[in-house]
């Protein structure tokens, strides 16, 4: 009897050990990509890529030296000579109804429509400021984030509406990013949290870091992780927010904060977040590209030490498993992300990367 029980115990331990080994050997199944990287050698206008936008088979790249369009295997560059507001293109947005592309630059806002570029500046239009960090199109409205407040262009009437400290709860006017949907518009205000505009009620609201303007996290999951917000994404009624000090998810009731110390986020310094749905999101940080599937994390980057392609997966228990990969994004400093079906396009400080989905 004793002997039998001992045998069973050994068996249980053996099974547990085997499962543990298996668990270690088989990390969560996270998407894998083959990254194809584009640089000036391939025709990209500049290696410093601020923004990327997928428009069907066409890829737009906002770079430090012009707007690139990748089509049919070739790059075409739009420059100031073509009417672009400024050589440095910081943000891009697609009007899905018309196919027009809006480009926020260091010198104004440009619309590319059927090959023609029209430019709006603070001198020739109602645009609040020429440094356009973010742009988003929803219906008849173009929402713009600038270095001196936010604004909206009504494409039907041509009216510009300016939003700043005089008519919104914005305490700083350095507006870094915007995402507009049919129900809500969110602005990431650098140093002033997140501004929310309800499209139905036309009322502004504001989300701040409950810890105030400090880098301490005294109240985790109680609100926005930090005031210096850099990026917002709103999908399936869930707000994803990036800051230089960690990221946040807000479902309208509960906040959840993501920090490197307790998540798979490779760095708290996050330039961009793009939600796929209420659960899943992509993060672009200064230390690589990260994917969160609601439970597990994956990081894609050139190794911080060797520079070799690297992919790691972190499960819910915090186990981090390296995955052998042959390619990685062009650089760790990720500035923007967009999706093309299952593929991902990544704007980095040293090139544009196309992540071709493998499995």
């Amino acid at each position, binding site marked *: 009897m004793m002997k039998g029980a001992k045998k069973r115990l050994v068996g249980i331990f053996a099974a547990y050990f085997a499962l543990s080994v298996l668990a270690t050997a088989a990390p969560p199944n996270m998407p894998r990509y083959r990254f194809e990287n584009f640089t000036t050698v391939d025709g990209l206008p500049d290696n410093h890529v601020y923004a990327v936008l997928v428009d069907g088979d066409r890829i737009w790249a906002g770079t430090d030296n012009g707007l690139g369009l990748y089509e049919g295997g070739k790059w075409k560059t739009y420059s100031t000579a073509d009417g672009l507001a400024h050589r440095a293109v910081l943000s891009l947005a697609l009007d899905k109804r*018309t196919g027009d592309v809006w480009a926020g630059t260091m010198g104004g806002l440009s619309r590319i429509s*059927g090959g023609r570029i029209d430019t709006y500046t603070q001198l020739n239009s*109602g645009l609040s400021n020429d440094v356009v960090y973010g742009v988003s199109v929803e219906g008849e409205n173009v929402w713009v984030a600038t270095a001196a407040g936010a604004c909206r262009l009504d494409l039907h009437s041509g009216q510009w509406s300016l939003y700043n400290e005089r008519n919104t709860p914005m305490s700083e006017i350095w507006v870094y990013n915007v995402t507009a949907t049919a129900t809500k518009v969110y602005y990431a205000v650098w140093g002033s949290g997140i501004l929310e505009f309800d499209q139905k009620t036309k009322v502004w609201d504001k989300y701040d870091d409950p810890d105030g303007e400090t880098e301490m996290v005294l109240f985790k999951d109680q609100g926005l992780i930090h005031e210096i917000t850099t990026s917002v994404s709103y999908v399936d009624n869930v707000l994803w927010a990036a800051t230089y000090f960690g990221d946040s998810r807000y479902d309208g009731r509960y906040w959840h904060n993501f920090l490197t110390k307790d998540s798979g986020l490779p760095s708290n310094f996050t330039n961009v977040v793009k939600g796929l749905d209420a659960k899943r999101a992509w993060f672009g940080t200064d230390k690589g590209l990260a994917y969160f599937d609601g439970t597990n994390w994956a990081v894609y980057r050139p190794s911080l030490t060797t520079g070799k392609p690297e992919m790691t997966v972190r499960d819910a228990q915090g186990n981090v498993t390296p995955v052998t990969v042959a390619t990685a994004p062009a650089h760790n400093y990720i500035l923007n992300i967009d999706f093309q079906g299952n593929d991902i396009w990544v704007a980095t400080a040293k090139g544009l990367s196309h992540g071709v989905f493998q499995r």
Partner: protein
Amino acid sequence: MTPAAQRRAPIALAAALLLCGVGLVCAAVWSGSTAHAADQDKTGEVLRYASPVEIMFSGDGKQLYVLCQGTDEVRVLDASGYAEIKRVSVGHIPRGFSLSADGARIFVANSWDDTISVIEAKTLTVTATWPVSGEPSSVVEDRKGTRLFVANRISNDIAVLNAQTGEEEKRLVAGRGASYITPSPDGLRLFVTHVYPNPTPHRMAPDSEITVVDANRAVVTDRIPLPGIAHGFHVAFSADGRLGVAAELHPKNLVPLAHLEHGGAFVDTLMVFGADVGNEPVEIPLDELERYAARPFGVAISPDKSRLFVTSSGSENVAVIDVSRLLRSIRSHPTPFAQDLSASANYVVNRIPVGNDPRGVTFTRDGRSLLVANRLDDTISVIDTHTDRVTATIPLGGPKRVSVLRHGEQTFYTARYSFQGQIGCANCHIDSTFDGLQWDLEPDGFGRDIVDNRPIEAVKDTEPFKWNGGNPNLPTECGPRTEKYFWRSENYDDLTLTDLVTYIRSLPPRPNRWHAPGEELTPAEERGRALFERAADKFGNPISEKNRCVYCHSGPKGTSQKSFDVGTKKGTDNTGLLDTPQLTNIAISSPYLHDGSAATLEQIWTVFNPEDKHGRTNDLTKDELNDLIEYLRTR
């Protein structure tokens, strides 16, 4: 005295009065407050002329539809004998129409009340009126019958509507003054032309475009550049789709207009494009010395592609082009030749006189006849396309007598008074509006005193004229000045000048698209009005009376009719003392300032008012300036 002379007697008296400098009194008797009320002459009789602008046959070819702009109708004629069948009332100032893909409906773009009338072809009744906005000027349904495309002249876009419900789906960005839509023969693409030039840097040649729309996806896929072109009109395609032509007007506004006799102020051209001419469109001239084709408008290519017909609304004729000779000529000219006055003799084989202000054209089904709508004669000319002769002139009915206003309008649109018949008033005042261009008018040296062309709608009671206020009244403006500097030709007779002036004074403002009469101002507009009228700046400092917006831009039309120096004088200007322009529909008449150097209303203050001479504005924040502009758009 003959009856005609008796009718003319009071007109002659009035002309004399006008020329004596009391024109205000005289014209006030004649001019009305609306387009139709204005058609009331001294007898009290209301004269509404049909003014046909476009024509087309029904799907089965048995009926001819005539779009009558003056009576707001589609007139339906029997196609065999051209007897009138019915008059269908539509919206105000209809400008374009087309048949649905199945021929069951007629769509009419009503430009002044911003609607589309839907007429059932079987019953000839209006079954729906759909709202659009921005001065709809042309309307085309896609071949599937799912979408309707509407070119809007003021909002510079193409509205995409559900073809069954009229619900607007979206708007596509067009060029400035989007006005005419032509589908390719296969219906897959739509080609849109524009009556106003796209914005270009100050003192650079104008340009326009043909906006190309993918009809299935309803997106703009291409823009065919029209360098040097300020005004585009109709497009036509050959049946095989390999040859496209666009009627257009190519101004020479960078050189002094005073040199009309040295080559002209405009080149009247066609842009030829498509597989037959290669990758790049080619601009070809229609003019010939002493035989100008002033303001080409309607175009049609014969079914067998042998001939091309072009109406010239100012020259009152139809140019006939031999297509093979044209293509040969293009191939033999590797370099641009649009300004070569000897070129058109190689391919223009005839110029057929028709009626006053010929506009739209259409072929009969067999291609043997070409029909031409003569807008200011209320007739349709029928041209035998084999003999190039007018075989019939179909009267549309209506007033037989030419009223003062009608004669004035005919004078405005014809080119016959200028040197060799090159230009008319309507060359620079497209459809009695403006042209968006800046001109070097005076014989004071190249590039001196550049002036922006001001709109003439609601011009009554805004004298003096010219930017320097040099012309005290319209008889001076339109008489000696025009004759001397523009026409370089003989003077109008007194009656003609009087009628012309009376017509111009009768021009009403087009509806303001930002503010309907009686409508309350929005909060932004209200804030802007307060800034417009303010007497103190934001720091509480009083603003001198002459530096308030409302002082110079006073009165219902926004002008005190006085001259001021607002600090905009350039080194090339002879004076900085400038007449205060009226503000009527100011939002649509960019560019601004006397020389057109401000591309937008914003630039008037963000760029050209550094010393607050053009009103105290440098204390304003950007959102306050936006408010001011919102208010100005309501004027």
